[in-house]
């Protein structure tokens, strides 16, 4: 005890509390910004991603651009097999799926209490591997015909937040929708039939009305022309929807990307850029504060040069002489690290409730803590090296 105490009493002379507090506050701000930004990025990112699977997948729905002239000239809006093959060959493509559509008239009737709603309808089908929900009733049996339907979640939202709210109708949940009896009237090929249906799921990915492919084939054969049809829409699974090559390809081929997948990945991109800027500012502040501490230490060592040299003369090694200063730096930096993690956690508690609206619960803290520890570790290492170097220069005295 007396050991450290004596050295510290000697060497703490000229320590400028003001400078050290200045450094600590600056570094606390810088480090808090950095780790808070990292944490915020990690908490917010899921909003911009469809993390349905462990490996990130994204789907684009593409169509041909509809132009007035093209429509009048009778240019096809369908994708030929060769077009699909070309798309399939692009390096950013994982899988391509075709949309098939109903080729007959559909009228849907919904019976809610005594009120009935009657509306014209259409169906599309895609391979089940592209559908983001997997309901148990997703099949069709011609012997006991009943049509399972998946509709876009947006339709339900539209009904609940738009129509129902405005008309004073009851809001409906996904579970309730399953129980609403639907019936479809199909007309075509001289056949006119009514088949019961049921909404079995809601899709976030597909902005349309989907039926099983087996039903689509069966119904097109029965009410439509039958045979193979060329798709007007394709669903493409890609590695990274923000890829510039995708945009270039679409532009050069006159294709259009439907939905907001590109927008969401743009938003994701801007989020990354903004967080990058914020992190850079934080790092810059930390870096500046690091130089403040370095200057402060240099000044301190300079003022205590004679004392340090006298200790070296007594037989103390440069290592022992630098220890009190290294300890001081380690304590200060350790405290700054602890406080910045604390502040980050507190501020996170402030923004987390806002994210709940997006059904995001926040990710774990450990990565931002590791980032904080690494930055602090680097700063501390820099400080220690500076102290050791400075003391090494005091070893030889110039009288």
């Amino acid at each position, binding site marked *: 005890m007396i050991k450290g105490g004596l050295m510290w009493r000697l060497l703490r002379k000229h320590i400028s509390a003001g400078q050290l507090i200045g450094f600590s506050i600056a570094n606390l701000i810088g480090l808090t910004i950095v780790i808070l930004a990292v944490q915020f990025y990690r908490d917010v990112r899921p909003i911009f991603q469809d993390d349905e699977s462990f490996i990130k997948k994204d789907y684009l729905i593409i169509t041909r651009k509809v132009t007035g002239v093209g429509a009048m000239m009778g240019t096809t809006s369908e994708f030929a097999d060769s077009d699909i093959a070309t798309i399939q060959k692009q390096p950013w493509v994982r899988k391509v799926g075709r949309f098939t559509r109903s080729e007959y008239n559909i009228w849907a009737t919904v019976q809610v209490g005594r009120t009935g709603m009657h509306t014209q309808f259409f169906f599309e089908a895609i391979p089940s591997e592209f559908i983001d929900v997997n309901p148990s009733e997703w099949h069709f049996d011609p012997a006991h015909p009943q049509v399972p339907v998946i509709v876009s979640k947006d339709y339900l939202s539209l009904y609940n937040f738009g129509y129902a709210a405005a008309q004073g109708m009851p809001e409906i949940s996904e579970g309730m929708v399953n129980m609403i009896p639907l019936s479809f009237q199909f007309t075509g090929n001289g056949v006119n039939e009514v088949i019961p249906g049921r909404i079995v799921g809601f899709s976030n990915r597909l902005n349309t009305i989907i039926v099983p492919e087996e039903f689509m084939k069966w119904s097109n054969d029965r009410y439509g022309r039958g045979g193979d049809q060329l798709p007007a829409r394709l669903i493409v699974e890609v590695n990274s929807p923000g890829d510039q090559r995708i945009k270039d390809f679409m532009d050069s081929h006159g294709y259009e990307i439907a939905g907001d997948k590109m927008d969401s990945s743009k938003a994701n991109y801007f989020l990354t850029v903004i967080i990058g800027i914020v992190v850079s500012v934080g790092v810059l502040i930390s870096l500046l504060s690091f130089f403040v501490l370095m200057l402060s230490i240099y000044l301190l060592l300079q003022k205590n040069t004679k004392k340090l040299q006298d200790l070296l003369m007594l*037989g*103390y090694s440069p290592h022992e002489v630098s220890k009190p200063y290294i300890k001081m730096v380690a304590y200060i930096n350790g405290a700054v690290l602890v406080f910045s993690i604390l502040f980050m956690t507190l501020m996170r508690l402030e923004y987390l409730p806002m994210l709940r609206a997006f059904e995001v619960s926040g990710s774990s803290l450990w990565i931002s803590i590791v980032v904080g520890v690494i930055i602090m570790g680097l700063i501390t290492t820099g400080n220690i090296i500076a102290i050791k170097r400075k003391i090494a220069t005091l070893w030889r005295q110039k009288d």
Partner: protein
Amino acid sequence: MERIDVKNTLPAVFAGREENNSEVWLQDLSFERGKNYLISAESGTGKSSLCSYIYGFREDYSGDFLFDGRNIRELVVEDWCDIRCRHIAYLPQELRLFPELTAMENIELKNRITGFKSAKDIEKLFEALGIPDKINASVARLSIGQQQRVAIIRTLCQPCDFILLDEPVSHLDNTNNKIVASLVMDEAKRQGAGIIATSVGNNVMITNEKEYKL
């Protein structure tokens, strides 16, 4: 360490001087363990420089100093720390005490890295030098003569092969000069160490086998 050889050395600031009456500079001589030497000098002849070369904190000289045949320019920081703790006990002319600490704390600061003397031994030295009441006094409040005695006690708080004293009694009266001489010689005898003392004028009462004029 058994011997210190001085071979043709000269402080850099003296380079180019034509006249050399020194028995040390540009000469070959050696200091042996167990023997006492007096370097008498007029001021400005480089006696503090000689001490700082031997103690390894200055290197601005030509020629060579050898510790047991090893050129001291080859020694590294760890070697010097070991030498300063175990082989050469040094009393600097400017004493180099820490004024913000007490007399005892100044000595503690040395003794704790050598672990050489007990608190009781140290107290006895304070008594012998007539300053037992100054043990816990702040060094800043001591007279220069008292400070010199504290510095001498500190010098004795380590194992050594040579005791290197730069003007050890310059601020002491005859009585204390005698006491210092006997304390230092006793310690040297106990450890079988040699003594190298410098002095302006021959007032150091440590008996010597050989005197060099610097």
